[in-house]
């Protein structure tokens, strides 16, 4: 994670800003978007009006009681606004930082690559799709585009937060550049792929700021439930007025309940806790994703991540360390292991590839063979080429070669030596174990085989086991042959693998899984990944990837880390769990509120109902106040949970449900009984209530 993204939630400036926003959000146009809180908003206005009436003689209830209720209700609304504002705060801060990098710069437009020396300076905002621009070292890239000529190192820290520059070059999968990043060395010619205002940076700002945040289907469904409950509670309180009127008439007394107390009851019963926190939960989920340096193109994608039950993971970088490493030297045809090691080390001294280095390291570890003075031996190194598929060294008439079995076989046979059966078997054995064999020959005589092995990352096996407990299957995607793939798959503990993977193969596999009712997540970077990315339910494109891949995916991973998928799934699940848990908590709370308010309202009518006052609240007024105050304070109390998300564990659905039901269901029933009692004792003690 970058330093830029580690803003402190509790930062003073951010809180000040959130408090200011809480008041700005009192605008009815904002309020009406959240139906449950809109009800509280209306109730606040209603009680305020009743208070004014009371001052002029029309008394619904004691003016002090009405005023107290009105004030608490206004605070309830403000607390809900604050929850949303504080959740938005982080995104806003991030958006500000991004905006700072989105300056209007001068772009050097050119006609064609051939005439790249003749550029015209134009403002970056005037660039159109398809325009060509040249960017030199030290200049900012004016718009999103594809590199079509040249290569340069680019500082993308403005977007990724990663300070190490990356290489961008024409052709291949590293050709996409983002407007707002800076070229550090060399030059590149870019074909512009987005118009001003629609660039990646613009989208990113909109997303982190929450401006383009639409309610997700799941949020809408939940809101329907909340609205329905609210409607029921409106009917409950309205009918209670008439029931009370009826009962009072039967007893020959006046209707004992005031509108104020009914409004208080309504606000307490309505699912205000979840209503107030719902949007904060959604924004915070998005924010957590941004913190993980992943940019989701829609909130829906995060929810889909929670549902994913198939993860298609690239082998390299996710399951295995990026490169193969030398694991063993296997001598053949009478050579010793040390001879093999010695020759292998010599041939690898100048080999700067990770494989080559690992051979040197292994030789040193096993036999203490140290680096030698290269110039003294007059060594001439033969680099690896695609044609020879071998590398090696010539010195003092000695010729050492190492390479793929087929290549070395051809090389020795051509030079009149033999390729033994023993060697062939050693090669085969290594392949069967999922390794890569490199055959080593000295003066056309085969000494042995180097066993290069994929090194499984530490902890992945446990990770996959955890995922399996949650019902998520992992599929390893690799270009290796099926034999190698199977061996690695078994070692890493993935559920299945796709060997010799082609883009078409991936696409087909995703379609197969989806047809069986699974939801599939994958990562990809190349242009040829685009169709599979477009098909997958959750598609994470690497930021280093091509423009096509980025457009096909519904998330972009700015770190381009292949393990990110697992984090994304966790964030998705956590978001949904938080939503469900707080809904449960909110509804479960109502029981205690009934026990506080109903006896308070009707003790006069039916004295026997005072037995329902099981909390032993001080008086009718204090009971109603305590319930309403609890109702307001619980919103504030739960803001940290809404922002952080409920605790998440990789266990089965049943275990998760049991756990959350205990905490938020049973806890939701018990907590308000205790809290309302405490508030009652407190407000009575300080004399807020007679």
């Amino acid at each position, binding site marked *: 994670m970058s330093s830029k993204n580690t803003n402190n939630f509790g930062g003073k400036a951010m809180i000040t800003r959130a408090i200011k926003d809480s008041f700005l959000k009192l605008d009815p146009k904002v309020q009406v978007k959240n139906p449950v809180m809109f009800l509280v908003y209306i109730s606040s206005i209603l009680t305020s009006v009743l208070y004014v009436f009371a001052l002029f003689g029309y008394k619904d209830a004691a003016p002090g009681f009405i005023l107290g209720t009105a004030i608490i209700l206004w605070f309830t609304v403000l607390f809900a606004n604050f929850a949303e504002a504080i959740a938005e705060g982080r995104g806003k801060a991030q958006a500000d930082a991004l905006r700072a990098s989105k300056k209007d710069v001068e772009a050097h437009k050119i006609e064609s690559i051939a005439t790249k020396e003749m550029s015209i300076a134009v403002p970056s905002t005037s660039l159109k799709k398809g325009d060509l621009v040249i960017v030199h070292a030290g200049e900012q890239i004016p718009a999103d585009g594809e590199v079509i000529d040249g290569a340069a190192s680019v500082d993308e820290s403005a977007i990724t937060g990663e300070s190490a520059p990356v290489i961008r070059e024409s052709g291949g999968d590293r050709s996409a550049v983002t407007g707002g990043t800076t070229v550090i060395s060399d030059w590149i010619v870019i074909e512009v792929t987005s118009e001003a205002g629609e660039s990646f940076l613009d989208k990113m700002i909109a997303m982190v700021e929450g401006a383009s945040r639409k309610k997700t289907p799941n949020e809408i469904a939940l809101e329907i439930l909340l609205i329905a409950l609210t409607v029921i509670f409106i009917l409950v309180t309205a009918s209670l007025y008439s029931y009370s009127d009826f009962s009072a008439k039967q007893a020959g007394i006046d209707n004992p309940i005031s509108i104020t107390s009914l409004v208080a009851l309504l606000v307490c019963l309505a699912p205000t806790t979840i209503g107030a926190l719902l949007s904060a939960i959604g924004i915070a989920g998005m924010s957590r994703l941004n913190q993980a340096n992943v940019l989701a193109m829609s909130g829906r994608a995060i929810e889909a991540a*929670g549902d994913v039950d198939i993860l298609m993971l690239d082998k390299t970088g996710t399951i295995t360390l990026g490169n193969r490493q030398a694991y063993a030297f296997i001598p053949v045809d009478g050579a010793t292991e040390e001879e093999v090691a010695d020759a292998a080390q010599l041939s690898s001294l100048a080999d700067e590839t990770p494989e080559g280095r690992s051979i040197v390291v292994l030789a040193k570890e096993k036999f203490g063979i140290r680096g030698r003075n290269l110039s003294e031996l007059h060594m001439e190194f033969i680099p690896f080429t695609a044609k020879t598929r071998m590398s090696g060294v010539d010195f003092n008439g000695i010729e050492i070669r190492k390479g793929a079995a087929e290549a070395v076989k051809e090389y020795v046979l051509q030079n009149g030596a033999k390729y033994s059966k023993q060697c062939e078997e050693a090669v085969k054995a290594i392949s069967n174990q999922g390794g890569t064999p490199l055959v080593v020959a000295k003066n056309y005589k085969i000494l042995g085989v180097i066993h290069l092995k994929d090194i499984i990352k530490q902890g992945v096996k446990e990770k996959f086991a955890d995922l399996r407990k949650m019902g998520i299957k992992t599929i390893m995607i690799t270009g290796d042959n099926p034999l190698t793939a199977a061996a690695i798959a078994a070692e890493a503990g993935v559920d299945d693998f796709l060997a010799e993977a082609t883009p078409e193969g991936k696409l087909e596999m995703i379609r197969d899984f989806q047809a069986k009712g699974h939801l599939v997540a994958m990562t990809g970077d190349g242009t040829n990944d685009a169709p599979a990315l477009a098909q997958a339910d959750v598609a994470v494109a690497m930021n280093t990837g091509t423009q096509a891949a980025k457009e096909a995916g519904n998330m972009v991973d700015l770190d381009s880390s292949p393990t990110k998928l697992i984090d994304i799934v966790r964030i998705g699940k956590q978001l949904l769990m938080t939503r469900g848990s707080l809904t449960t908590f909110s509804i479960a709370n109502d029981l205690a509120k009934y026990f506080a308010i109903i006896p308070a309202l009707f003790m006069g009518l039916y004295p026997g109902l005072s037995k329902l006052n099981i909390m032993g609240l001080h008086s009718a007024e204090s009971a109603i106040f305590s319930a309403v105050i609890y109702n307001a304070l619980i919103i504030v109390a739960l803001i940290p949970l809404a922002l952080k998300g409920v605790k998440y564990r990789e266990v089965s659905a049943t275990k998760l449900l049991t756990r959350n039901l205990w905490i938020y269901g049973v806890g939701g029933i018990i907590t308000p009984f205790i809290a309302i009692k405490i508030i009652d004792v407190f407000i009575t003690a300080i004399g807020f209530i007679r």
Partner: protein
Amino acid sequence: MQAILQYGFYLIILVVLAIPLGSYMGKVMNGEKVFLSKILLPCENFIYRMLKIDKKEDMHWKKYAMCTLAFNAIGFAFLYLLLVLQRFLPLNPENIEGNSWHLAFNTASSFITNTNWQAYSGENALSYFSQMMGLTVQNFVSAAVGIVVLFALIRGFVRVEEKGVGNFFIDMTRTILYVLIPLSIVVTLGIASQGVVQSFKPYETVTLVEPIELEDGSVVTEQVVPLGPAASQIAIKQLGTNGGGFMGANSAHPLENPTPFSNLLEMISILLIPAALCFTFGRNVKDKKQGIAIFSAMFIMLVIALSVIAVNEHAATPQLAQEGAVNILAENQAGGNMEGKEARFGIATSGTWAAFTTAASNGSVNSMHDSYTPIGGMVTMLLMQLGEVVFGGVGCGLYGMLGFAILTVFIAGLMVGRTPEYLGKKIEPFEMKMAVLVCLATPIGILVGSGIAALIPTIADSLNNSGAHGFSELLYAYSSAGGNNGSAFAGFNANTPFLNVSIGIVMLFARFAPMVATLAIAGSLVGKKKVAVSVGTLPTHNALFVALLIFIVLLIGALSFFPALALGPIAEYFQMIA
């Protein structure tokens, strides 16, 4: 101890009979071959030919819903005219007048909605023709409508990426022909053998064995015994969770329910089909455990309700026990609260019936719920207020419960970190909208209806009692309408224009809003693909889910009705023990 055995016996018989019937109905729903096919298949095909029904047609949910509504609208019009014009129709030996417009509206609404709320007394207000051609016909078809809508919903869960939810006419024909008629014949014969009347003769006047002297000194020596084709109507009234009695006193009347055996038959018939449909559901969604889970949730709630009623009725009230007025703990005679209960049934049988009839939205009674202890009476009321989902009406009880199951998976599904799904189908905003309508139509109907009624100044005239119990009578009436139950707190006089119309509207709303919503859910689910099951999927067939489902049903019920009940039975209870 003996009483506990009795309660257990009733419950066991119910389960033993429901399981095979469930799989039988499953076959009927799918059009599979059953043992009656040989006889009934020709009849079935004959009906299709006569009515020009295309056997191959698979209806989109909207068409299915239109057919359902149109069918009910026609049934309503027909029944309304019949009731108003019965004076001019045959089989009216007592020359009973036509019903008033509002009573006819109420009765027609009541019978097409499978409620069978009766603002009249059958022996005084209806001709034999109205009873048979009007009410009994609706007893069959309104029950069948509930079942076919359930079938459509089940298809919604079963079918994958299709459009149709079944054929309304075929479902109706099969349900009536293969399920309701055969069962009715069995029950009719059973109860007729016990002495339930089945006759077209005029009422008979008989001489009393023991003349009765009234308070004013006059002596009554004769009694009119009402007759009629009762047995056949009573069988379907019980089986189809209709509940509308042939006589005003319903199954407390000796000619509707003469013996312990007839009582057993009638009582088991109340819950038989609703309970069996749970197994039909499990069988046809190809996961029997799902059906058992839903059944268990309903069964547990029934047992709880039954226990509370039983304990309270056996314990009676301090007032009854005062100075030894009633020997509550009598060993050899019926002790406890026997007010309003038939001596030949006693507390266990009356209490069980009360629980069964309000759990199912049946509404027939063999004792007067008005006379129950406050808490005993509250439980009968609450069972209706829960939305009639503790078995509930035939078909509609289960689809109501599935609505609650959808709410439950929604909340629980989120808590396991997935967007909710039920039986492999994703629950999205549209399903949610419809599910809340299914679950909340009953509370809405009850709260609005009783809320308005409580404000009407003349309402007190309809009440038999004042104070908290008077309020309970009012609340019970609307709960009965909102739950499409049809039973009443006996003292309530409902035959006034306001009550007839308002209760009629509540019945219609509480019946058809959830029905259309259910079909909409079916239509939406049928087009969805099925999500694969993994350990990450919320299981909906284990004890945890059953507990959660019960909790959600009780919670919604409690949240909706706690204040109302506090002013009625709960207040009365505290008065009683004060």
